[in-house]
């Protein structure tokens, strides 16, 4: 098992390097120039007044005139030394920027993840146990629809009803939960709901079909035959077995939530990682995009690794194989 984990971790690092390489190449090969965006950001007229010599000097200053492989190795070397570089557009240290913004996205993301997973599994189990009842029909229909709602649209819908019409919640913004917990919670209800609904829906559908699969298994019939209580059969035999395939998609669910953060941070004006990445992509800000890709990639790859480890721990057939 230990050897397996180490091997997976090494592959994880290789994949992470591969991701950054692909993105690095993409950014250099596709059209768009961060320096033009940067210079135009100060003054439209300045773009034309900047002479070729000055432009070359800027290019040289940021190291963008070197061959792409050299730039990449240089960037990777700095990452290993803990230096993420400086943003061309914002002229700020990226480590500082990320340290400021990542906790916000992580705070929202973790709450969403917990609500989405626990809520989805709960709804799925109820649907499977009461299969065919009106409750199953209603919840299954809602989760089928929930999977199709665009995150940003749900955010706007909630904003219209809960903030504009009812006036119960503030429309948007971000407050540090340590400064004003109540305000921060009120501001986060809508963003978290918008992303969590999709998570709950997907998780509920999966849980329901896994539970139904398990219900037909021989060992469940045996459990009934030997006269166990329903509660014991459901908890000890059905849920325990149905949870195994559910765990495997948790890594993907986390990715979905990180992706959703891009939308809700735009809709609700939350200065988090998703917003930083979107604006950086618009501004062609190479350094921030690369750091963001590295961070998101690392989160997803290592949560998948964690999922594999949990999986082996839950299912002895995998651990001992």
């Amino acid at each position: 098992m230990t050897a397996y984990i180490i091997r997976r971790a090494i592959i994880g690092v290789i994949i992470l390097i591969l991701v950054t390489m692909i993105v690095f190449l993409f950014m250099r090969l596709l059209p768009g120039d961060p320096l033009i965006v940067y210079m135009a950001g100060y003054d439209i007229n300045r773009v034309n007044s900047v002479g070729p010599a000055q432009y070359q000097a800027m290019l040289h200053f940021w190291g963008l005139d070197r061959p792409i492989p050299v730039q990449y190795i240089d960037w990777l070397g700095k990452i290993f030394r803990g230096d993420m570089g400086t943003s061309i557009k914002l002229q700020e240290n990226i480590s500082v920027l990320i340290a400021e913004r990542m906790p916000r996205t992580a705070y929202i993301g973790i709450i969403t993840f917990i609500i989405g997973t626990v809520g989805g599994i709960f709804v799925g189990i109820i649907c499977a146990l009461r299969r065919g009842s009106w409750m199953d029909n209603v919840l299954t229909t809602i989760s089928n629809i929930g999977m199709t709602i665009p995150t940003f649209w749900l955010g706007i819908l909630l904003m219209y009803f809960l903030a504009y019409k009812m006036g119960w919640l503030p429309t948007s913004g971000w407050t540090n939960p340590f400064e004003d917990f109540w305000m921060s919670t009120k501001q986060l209800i809508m963003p978290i709901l918008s992303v969590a609904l999709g998570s709950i829906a997907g998780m509920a559908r999966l849980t329901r079909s896994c539970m139904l699969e398990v219900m037909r298994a021989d060992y469940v019939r045996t459990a009934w035959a030997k006269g166990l209580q329903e509660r014991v059969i459901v908890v000890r035999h059905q849920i325990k077995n149905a949870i195994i395939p559910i765990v495997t998609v948790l890594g993907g669910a986390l990715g979905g939530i990180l992706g959703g953060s891009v939308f809700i941070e735009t809709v609700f004006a939350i200065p988090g990682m998703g917003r930083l990445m979107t604006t950086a992509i618009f501004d062609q800000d190479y350094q921030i995009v690369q750091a963001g890709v590295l961070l998101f990639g690392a989160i997803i790859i290592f949560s998948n690794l964690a999922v594999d480890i949990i999986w082996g721990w839950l299912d002895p057939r995998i651990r001992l194989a």
Partner: protein
Amino acid sequence: MADDIEKTAKNSDAIGTAVAPPRHSEWRRISRVFFGRKLYAIGFAICVLLILVAIFAPWIATHDPLKTDLRHKLEQPSWTHLLGTDSVGRDTFSRIVYGTRTSLLIGFTAVFASAIIGTLMGLAAAYFGGWVFAIIMRFTDALMALPGIILVLLIAGLAGGGIPVVIFALGFGGIAGMCRMMCGQALSVKQNDYVLAGRAIGMSDWRMMLTQIFPNAFPPLMVGITMGIGGVVLGEAGLSFLGIGVMPPTPSWGGMVNNGQSYLLTNPILSLAPGVAIMLLVFGFNMLGDGVRDAVDPKLRGVL
């Protein structure tokens, strides 16, 4: 039409049995399972309806979707403007109708592009094995290590938006999933005796892949394509919402949601109506995909 299909469909049940079982064509079975559940039939109906709307858009739309009319801007719904008008006086209903075209065009082309490339990569990985397998799998691992929307956003954002760029970005984003699925299928099909027989009579690698392995690994691909369309339409809406998808003035549902956001207080329908259209389309194709999956191969339940 059903008779035609029945005649052409091969009848595998009746061969070699003493008492011929009742003639069941494969198509009859598939359509029975498919239309047996109301939800799948509804999904099918929604898809057909939306495709018809896209084809006959000029006859259904009440106004020119691009024509601005500043004297009638931000009007509430009325009989002349069924869903009101936007900030430059364009008719919302007509824009939604034409938006169906944009969404379906992008949905179909992007999914088919990623299906073709993903299939070829998956087949090659499964068939050749060894280092080809390793390279292709690590490549898909790398693509899957980013949240789908970030990858697509990255490509579209750097390349600068517009319909071809959106198709390229979403198609690229879909390759990894298709490749994985095809590779898994092809690996199991490869174990069959007829593949060995093919090798014995000296079939070339590509002929083997395309005539022997591909047709037998096809059903899941059909499901993947149907399900993929919903995902791509959602992705397109997201990109357009963020402002780097379909470029204005071309009507796009995501872009319309974004434009309407500023007038949420006075004209909520501007943002909310296109969202309903997105949901309808995605719901239709998801249900269609579920139905195709159950009809083609119930074993795939939970896998796809």
